[in-house]
């Protein structure tokens, strides 16, 4: 029964081209780990790996979800299936979506360290990512946020040479890091399977939920102009969303968070970044200092953050209300402008930290500052436009459910992140590239945002993709 069930679960959650691509990429990643001669772990790769692991662990736990669809709740879970087979099938689906991402993102690093242990590390890391996504929905929001921050800080503590963290294996403490990852994988996988064994009950709970949560500090739009209402709504609240295999979640999140709380959190993170970068001492040359990779990693992570925010810009839209009120170009132009301002409010503390470092003689902070100010805003707008045009998906019902199948087209929403990361990385070496690249992306973004023809096509796409 298991093979049939597993095939059914995979085919209903992923399109065939998507599965083929994942298989090809896995073969590629395995091939590259064995084909490339070891060159040793460079400092920048250490920082990159640790920073990205911290970010993705936190995101997987904060926004994770089980790959269950409404039809599962209505049909699959009513069948007399073995709980073990069902749990295993869903876990494999989770692994295909999230675990493989880890292998793809980190496999090439295996060539950098001459140790078979790194293969074990990658496998353990993939299992941890997969399991955190399963565990996340069963936790209260507050618990999830606290645990996400703790996980991120724990991982980042490897920068302080703490040997037992999820990032230590990539940061000079191979044995301690491997032991930690294996222990973490054991704990999270067991917890994930326990969660999956009662997944039907959790889904049923979501169906019969009767509590009516009240919004504690609602906004008022009385007396506001149409455009004032758009800015008021989007500057006071934020939502984070993502649903693609590199985003670490199978669902779109449509809970709102007060922007001031997100800014408070980013201020704390920026302060920690400043203190850490400052503690490394003023750099003498760009290449020879620790501050340089710290600035790059911070900028790359902020680019990821911008991407995550971009994915929720359209998903929570209600076109039957907004686009019957204002012309599409007017509405989207101001919606996007408000989202950019909102994102920049969150990133402003990091820009301030970089500016302060720059003033204290840390010349390399110029790269981070240039990326935040010049590259991220334009690329954020392009990511919103790209997602709206390529694979728009609307959050309609329950957050617990997958709103649509994983497909290649949806995966393509992440493609734009690649040139952005490359641009951010090159700009770290040559800050002028950030300025030029930023101007180019801003010009492209402006062209799209101001184009009536583009938004007319987007509206058709949204409508044909079932947006209400």
């Amino acid at each position, binding site marked *: 029964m298991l093979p049939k069930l597993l095939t059914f679960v995979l085919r209903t959650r992923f399109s065939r081209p998507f599965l083929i691509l994942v298989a090809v990429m896995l073969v590629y990643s395995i091939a590259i780990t064995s084909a490339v001669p070891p060159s040793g772990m460079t400092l920048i790769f250490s920082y990159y790996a640790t920073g990205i692991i911290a970010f993705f662990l936190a995101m997987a736990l904060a926004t994770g979800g089980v790959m269950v669809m409404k039809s599962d709740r209505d049909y699959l879970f009513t069948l007399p299936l073995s709980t073990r087979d069902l749990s295993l099938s869903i876990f494999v689906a989770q692994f295909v979506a999230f675990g493989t991402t880890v292998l793809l993102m980190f496999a090439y690093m295996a060539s950098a360290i001459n140790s078979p242990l790194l293969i074990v590390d990658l496998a353990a890391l993939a299992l941890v990512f997969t399991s955190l996504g399963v565990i996340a929905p069963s936790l209260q929001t507050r618990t999830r946020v606290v645990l996400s921050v703790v996980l991120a800080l724990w991982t980042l503590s490897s920068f302080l040479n703490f040997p037992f963290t999820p990032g230590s294996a990539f940061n000079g403490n191979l044995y301690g890091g491997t032991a930690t990852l294996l222990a973490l994988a054991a704990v999270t996988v067991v917890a994930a399977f326990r969660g999956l064994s009662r997944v039907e009950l959790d889904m049923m709970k979501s169906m019969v939920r009767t509590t009516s949560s009240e919004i504690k500090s609602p906004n008022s739009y009385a007396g506001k102009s149409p455009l004032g209402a758009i800015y008021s709504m989007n500057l006071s609240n934020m939502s984070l969303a993502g649903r693609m295999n590199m985003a670490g979640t199978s669902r779109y999140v449509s809970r709102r968070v007060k922007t001031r709380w997100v800014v408070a959190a980013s201020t704390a993170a920026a302060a920690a970044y400043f203190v850490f970068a400052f503690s490394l001492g003023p750099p003498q040359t760009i290449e020879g200092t620790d501050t340089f990779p710290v600035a790059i990693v911070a900028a790359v992570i902020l680019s990821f953050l911008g991407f995550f925010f971009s994915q929720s810009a359209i998903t929570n839209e209600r076109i039957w209300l907004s686009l*019957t009120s204002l*012309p599409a170009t007017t509405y989207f132009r101001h919606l996007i402008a408000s989202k950019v301002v909102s994102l920049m409010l969150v990133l402003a503390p990091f820009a301030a930290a970089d500016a302060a470092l720059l003033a204290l003689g840390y010349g390399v902070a110029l790269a981070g500052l240039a990326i935040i100010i010049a590259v991220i805003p334009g690329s954020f707008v392009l990511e919103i436009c790209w997602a709206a045009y390529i694979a728009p998906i609307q959050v309609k019902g329950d957050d617990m459910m997958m709103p649509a199948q994983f497909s290649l087209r949806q995966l393509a929403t992440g493609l734009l992140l690649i040139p952005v990361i490359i641009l951010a990385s090159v700009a770290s070496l040559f800050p002028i590239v950030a300025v030029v690249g930023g101007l180019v992306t801003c010009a492209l973004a402006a062209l799209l945002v101001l184009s009536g023809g583009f938004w007319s096509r987007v509206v058709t796409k949204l409508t*044909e993709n079932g947006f209400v």
Partner: protein
Amino acid sequence: MSSESRPNTAHGIELVHVSKSYGSVPALSDLSFEIPVGGRYALLGPNGAGKSTTLKLLIGSLRADTGYIKILGSAPESKESKATVGYLPEDALPYRMLSVRENLEYIAALRGVADVRGQTEYLLDELDLRQYEKSNVGRLSRGNTQKLAIALAIVHSPKVLLLDEPLNYLDIPTQEKVISMLDRLEGTHLVSTHIMSIANRLTDSVVMISKGMFLWEGTIEELKKKGSPEEPIEKVVARMMTGAS
């Protein structure tokens, strides 16, 4: 249905030789019909007839491949048309992250309603939503969500109202309340529905389409006369639709 006299000199809604395809699949083929200003019409048709596509063309979220559409003389995507049209889709979803009151105030502000607060208070009371005004819409029952959606569709007192199965999910007392409220609203109404009893309560005329093509137009009384006196109107409609296929 009120029997007040309505001017019949201009078109509230006008579709002329409209065709629309999704890729190679035709949804509407050379569809033409007109609804006079103040007319109350039901848009009837079997599944896949093109009713929802027609409504989406009327609000400007889809563009016709050929032909043209006018709402009170303006193109659907024009500012003039947006100011006059109210639209309720089937299974309408308000903003899930906002409360009931926030939804009403936000959309009223977006539509440039002069008295946002006053209109919000009126609709909260009119549709018995007062007790849920602070509730997160994502947690509302389907019936209360539908009540809010109806309120959002009429928050700006539209001159042309397009409704797709407006009484879905509503209990009988609420249905009566909504029917009474819609009856009091002035303007041109086009109601897409499968249920003849709803068409009968909300409208007095019918446009029937099938396979994306115009089939028949007339009053409900004329429709009833197409069958024997004891024959349910649903049977008459079914026969007409089946005859078209």
